[in-house]
């Protein structure tokens, strides 16, 4: 069987509007393993694809909270516990003077949380992706819009899926191998 090694069905569209309508159809048909590739961000695509708000925020929040606590703990440990040192006649520990450091730590670790959380959720880095072999797919960074439905999707039945994408106005379709 040829399809045993197929990654998915790639459908090409000429305009963002066509791709968006196709995405709505695919979403409504209940597919779960699929994606849309466009040369630039298309407003409203998240909704058309039925994507919920990203979970990256939780990673940055946890990172930020860790940074905040770690910043205060670090300064307290260094300046008033492990090696108490009086600077400028100020108290050994106060919420005031460490704050710039605490604030920077909060930002640094929440940025780390955002970056690494994003990489983790996207399963990146990835050494290879089947779409990268496809010659036609290069246009995804130029002027074409693609919807790809993976063959591993439980809803995937080749004939029906082809019909669905054709009815959405797809001009060109091809199977992408693993």
């Amino acid at each position, binding site marked *: 069987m040829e399809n045993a090694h197929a990654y998915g069905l790639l459908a090409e569209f000429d305009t963002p509007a066509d791709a968006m309508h196709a995405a709505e159809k695919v979403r409504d048909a209940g597919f779960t393993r699929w994606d849309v590739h466009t040369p630039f961000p298309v407003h409203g695509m998240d909704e058309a694809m039925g994507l919920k*708000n990203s979970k990256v*925020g939780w990673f940055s*929040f946890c990172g930020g909270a860790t940074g905040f606590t770690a910043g205060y703990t670090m300064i307290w440990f260094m300046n008033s516990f492990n090696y108490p040192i009086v600077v*400028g*006649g*100020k108290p050994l520990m106060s919420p*005031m*003077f460490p*704050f*710039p450091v605490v604030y920077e730590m909060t930002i640094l670790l929440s940025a780390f949380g955002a970056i690494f959380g994003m990489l983790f959720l996207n399963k990146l880095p990835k050494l290879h992706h089947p779409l990268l072999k496809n010659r036609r797919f290069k246009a995804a960074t130029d002027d074409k819009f693609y919807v790809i439905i993976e063959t591993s999707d439980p809803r995937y039945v080749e004939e029906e899926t082809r019909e669905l994408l054709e009815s959405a106005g797809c001009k060109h379709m091809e199977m992408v191998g693993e």
Partner: protein
Amino acid sequence: MSSESPQSSKPSLDLAKYANLPNQLIVGGAIGLLIGFFAWREQFLYSYLTAFMFFLSLVLGGLFLVLLHHLFDSQWLVPIRRICEHFAGLAPILGVLGLPVILIFAKSIYPWMAIEDPHSDHALHVKYALFNPTAFWVVSIALFVVWTWLANRLRKHSLAQDETGAATHTQAMRKYAAGGIVLFAFTLTLGVIYWMKSLEHQWFSTMYGVYYFAGSVWTTLATMYVLTALLQRTGHLAPVVRDSTFKDIGTLFFAFTVFYAYIHFSQYFLIWNAAIPEETFWYVKRENGIWWYLGMLIIFGHFFVPFLTMLRIDVKKKLTIMAPLAGWAWLMHYVDMTFNIKPVIDPEGHGISLSGMIQSIASMAFIGGFLAKFFLKSFITHAPFPQRDPRIAETMGVYVELESEAQAQTKSAKA
């Protein structure tokens, strides 16, 4: 009322039964203030000043949002721009309400005015160029003239554009905004130095202007959020307001929550770190008695509560959370103004007095009632949002084809 028909299917809200509320506030406030004027003169003056500074925040905040809109050629602000213009247009009303009290009783309000020989006090001596009664009078009046002029220029062009739809009005408003933002920064700083900071004339803080500005825009955005939601439900703004309008106002509100905290912390931090008596006395006084708790309330209530509440993006679209938060923002801004003004008459922080409570509420009701009355009057007599702003279609989420595009399409259709 306006001719706009509400597009939303929700039953529209009717606020007609509250039409008399501003009058009731004015009368109630006036009675309270009259009692205060004769019985508790000091409380009356300082509470009135607090309410004046509170509402000045909304007027200047409105003006700032209009300037911001034109400077950045923004799209999200279009639905609420007319409301902001009316807010800014309240400047002369606030001037008439506030200046007579501030100017006539200046000697009772500002201790530096009562010093017999200004050159006997070193702090006053070196600041004499600004801190003398003549400059105080002239600048106070001039500031309101400038704000009134700028607000009226911007609103005049905006209203004219409703009629003509000409792009020249947008271009003119941009020019006013470009010069206006500089004027705005200087005038706001001068105003807040004269009316609020000079209560303790020995004090120094280079951040005071921006500190007041941050709190002002913060409060204005909270107000705008609730007003937009209300006016969407009454149908006035229903054609232009979308989900993203609330998200955008909420996001800027959130940003200003952080900005205010950043500025106020920086002011405190520099003074704390330098530990120079000329600067620290201001905060030392505010650690006495009740002022300590008010200070804590500002840290936690003005920053942490709204910050943590609004962190999630979906919260910014939920009126059930945002409306109480906006009310809370009003309270916090009032606490902030009180924290700046009232320790002058109660340096020990004895606590809340009945006279103080009555005067605070009466002043807020009196000035707020007048401003609400004039705001409603201008809102009702004009279109509720800029009718023919170049970005109105974009705001409504509609794509309007350019003429060149339409021509190209008919050509290709013929071919």
